[in-house]
C-alpha cells in the first residue's frame, strides 16, 4: 500500500524526475520511517543552528547513518549521466572483434570491492557478450578472492563458457611493480601457469600471448598501490599496450593526468561504474533485470551528499549568526 502511495500518480511526478523507487522486499515500509526521521533530523539540526548552538557529533553520526540506511532500504535509483571518459572504454570493447583477448587486472581488496567489483562484473559481462576472451590477473594478494567473486557472479549467465578457451585466471604473483615490468615484455616469465597450476601453453586462449601488448585491451581496476599508476608506468608506457582503467573515487583525481594519452578511458568510483552499467543495459537490454550494483550505491551516495551539503550550509549559517550576535553584543 505504502509503495503504491509512493508510486501513485499524485506523488510520482514529484519524485520521478528525481529518482525512481524499485521494489526492495520489506524495504519500503522501513524506508518511510527512515525518511520521516531524516526530515525530522535535518529540521532539528536546522533548529539548533538557528538557535546558535553547535550540533553534537553523535547527532551527526546518527543522521549520517539514517540517511544512508534510509537510502539503501528505499533502493533509490538516480538518473546517471554518461561521460566520454567512461564511454571510451565501452566503445573500445564494443568495437573489438569476436575472439580478441582482454586482460582484466583486479588490484584491490574487500574494502575497495563496493566501488570496484561492479566495474569488474560489468566489464566482464560486456566482454563475454561480445564473445571476447578474458584473462584475469591481480597484483594484490587479496585480489584472488575478488576474481573468484567476479567469476561466480557472472558464470550462471554464461553457462556455455569453457575454462581455458573463453576465460582464464592466472591469479596473483608477488612482486608488485616487478611483475608488471616483466609481463610488459614477457607474460609467461611471471605467469608460467594459471592460478591452479595448469601450464599456460595448454590453455587454448593463451596461445599467441607472449606479452601484454598481445591483449587487444587491458582493463586495470585498482584502488591503490600497486595499481593503475604502476600499470601506466611499467606496462603502457614501455610497451604501448592499449589500456582503460577503473579507479576508486579517492585515487581518481591523481590519475586524471594519464587520460587520454596513456589510458583511453577511466571509470572513477561508483559513478563511473554506474555509467558503465547504464551503457551495458542500453546495449544489452537483458541486463535490465539484473542487479546493477554500482547504480544501487549511487542513490545512497547522492543522498549522503545532499545531507553533507546541508550540514555545511547549516554550519556556515550558524557561524555567521554567531558572528553577528558577537558583533551586536560588542
Amino acid at each position, binding site marked *: 500500500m505504502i509503495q503504491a502511495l509512493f508510486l501513485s500518480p499524485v506523488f510520482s511526478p514529484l519524485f520521478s524526475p528525481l529518482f525512481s523507487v524499485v521494489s*526492495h*522486499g*520489506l*524495504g519500503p515500509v*522501513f524506508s518511510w520511517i527512515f525518511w520521516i526521521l531524516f526530515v525530522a533530523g535535518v529540521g532539528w539540526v536546522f533548529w539548533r543552528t538557528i538557535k546558535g548552538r553547535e550540533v553534537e557529533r*553523535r547527532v551527526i*553520526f546518527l543522521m*549520517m*547513518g539514517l540517511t*544512508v*540506511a534510509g*537510502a*539503501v*532500504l528505499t*533502493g533509490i535509483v538516480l538518473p546517471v549521466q554518461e561521460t566520454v571518459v567512461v564511454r571510451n572504454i565501452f566503445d573500445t570493447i564494443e568495437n573489438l572483434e569476436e575472439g580478441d583477448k582482454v586482460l582484466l587486472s583486479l588490484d584491490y581488496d574487500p*574494502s575497495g*570491492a*563496493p*566501488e570496484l567489483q561492479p566495474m569488474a562484473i560489468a566489464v566482464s559481462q560486456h566482454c563475454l557478450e561480445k564473445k571476447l576472451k578474458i584473462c584475469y590477473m591481480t597484483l594484490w594478494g587479496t585480489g584472488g578472492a575478488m576474481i573468484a567473486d567476479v567469476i561466480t557472479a557472472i558464470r550462471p549467465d554464461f553457462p556455455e563458457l569453457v575454462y581455458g578457451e573463453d576465460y582464464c585466471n592466472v591469479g596473483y604473483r*608477488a612482486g608488485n611493480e616487478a611483475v608488471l615490468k616483466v609481463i610488459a615484455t614477457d607474460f609467461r616469465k611471471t605467469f608460467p601457469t594459471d592460478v591452479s597450476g595448469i601450464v599456460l601453453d595448454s590453455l587454448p586462449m593463451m596461445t599467441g600471448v607472449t606479452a601484454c601488448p598481445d591483449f587487444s585491451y587491458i582493463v586495470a581496476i585498482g584502488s591503490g598501490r600497486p595499481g593503475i599508476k604502476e600499470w601506466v608506468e611499467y606496462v603502457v608506457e614501455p610497451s604501448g599496450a592499449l589500456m582503460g582503467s577503473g579507479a*576508486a*573515487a*579517492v585515487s*581518481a*583525481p591523481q590519475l586524471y593526468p594519464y587520460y587520454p594519452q596513456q589510458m583511453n578511458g577511466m571509470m572513477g*568510483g*561508483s*559513478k563511473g561504474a554506474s555509467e558503465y552499467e547504464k551503457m551495458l543495459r542500453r546495449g544489452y537490454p537483458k541486463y535490465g533485470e539484473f542487479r546493477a550494483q554500482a547504480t*544501487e*550505491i549511487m542513490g*545512497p*551516495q547522492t543522498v*549522503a*551528499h545532499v545531507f*553533507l551539503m546541508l550540514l555545511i550550509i547549516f554550519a556556515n549559517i550558524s557561524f555567521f549568526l554567531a558572528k553577528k550576535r558577537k558583533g551586536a553584543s560588542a
Partner: protein
Amino acid sequence: MNRKVMIPIASIIVFIGFLLLKFDFEAVDSSQALWDAFIVTAGGFLTLMIFSFLYRDNPFYKFAEHLYVGVSAAYWMCVGFWSNIVQQAIPHLSPWLSEALDQPFLGYKWDYWIPIAFGLLLLTRLLPDSLKIGWLSKWTLAFIVASTAGLLMTANLKANFISQISSTMSLPLLPDWTGFGDFVSNFDLSYGGQFIKMLSNWVIVVGVISGLVYFFFSKEHTGWFGRVSRLGIWVLMVTFGASFGYTVMGRVSLLVGRLTFLFRDWAGIIS
C-alpha cells in the same frame, strides 16, 4: 548478578539465537552449514560492535578491537614468516631445513646469511641487560636505515623531483598561439579552447612556483614574498578542499557496502 556478567551472557544468548536463525537445517553438510551461519552471524555482530564505537567507547567495541589486534598480529606473523623465511631464505641456506619444511632446495646463496646475521643481532635486545650485548642490535638498525636512505634518496629524487621540474618547464605558456586577433575571434571557454589551455598552464606554473615559495624556511613571509607565498597556500587549500569533496563519494560507498551486508545478508530486511 552484576552487569559485568549479565552483558556477556546476554550477548552470547542473542548470538546463539541468531546463529540458529541463520542455520540451514535442511543442509546436507551440516558442519558446513553451521560454519556458513556462523560467518554471517559473527560478521553482523562484529560490524555492529565496531559501529557502536560511534556512540562511545564500550565493552563491545573493546572486545572486537582486542580480538582483531590479536588475530591480525598472528596472521601477519604467520604469513611473513612463511613467505620471507621459509619460502625465500631457507631454500638457499640449508638442504636439511628445506626438506623438513617441504620446500625445494634451490642451491646455496651466501648472501642470505647477511640478513640472517643482522636479524640475529637484532634479537640480542631480548637478552637480559646484565649480559650487556644489547647494543649489538644497533648495527642492524644502522644498516637498515642507512641502506634504505641511500636506496630511496635517488629513486624519490627522480620521480618526485627531477621529472616534475622538467615537466613544469616544458609547459607552453602560449599554446597554439596564432596571434591576438585570432585569440579574440576564437574566444572559447571549453577545454579545447585556447583561453582555458593558456589559463591552465599559467595556473600550473604560477601555482608550482608560489607553492615552492611557501615552503621557504629562511625568509620571513612579508612583503611581496609574503604575498607570493600566500598565493601558494591558497592553491594548496583549494586543492585540499577539492580532494576532500571528491573523497566523500568513495567513503560513503564503503558504508553502503556495510549496510547492505547488514540489511540483506544479516538481518534479511531487503532482498
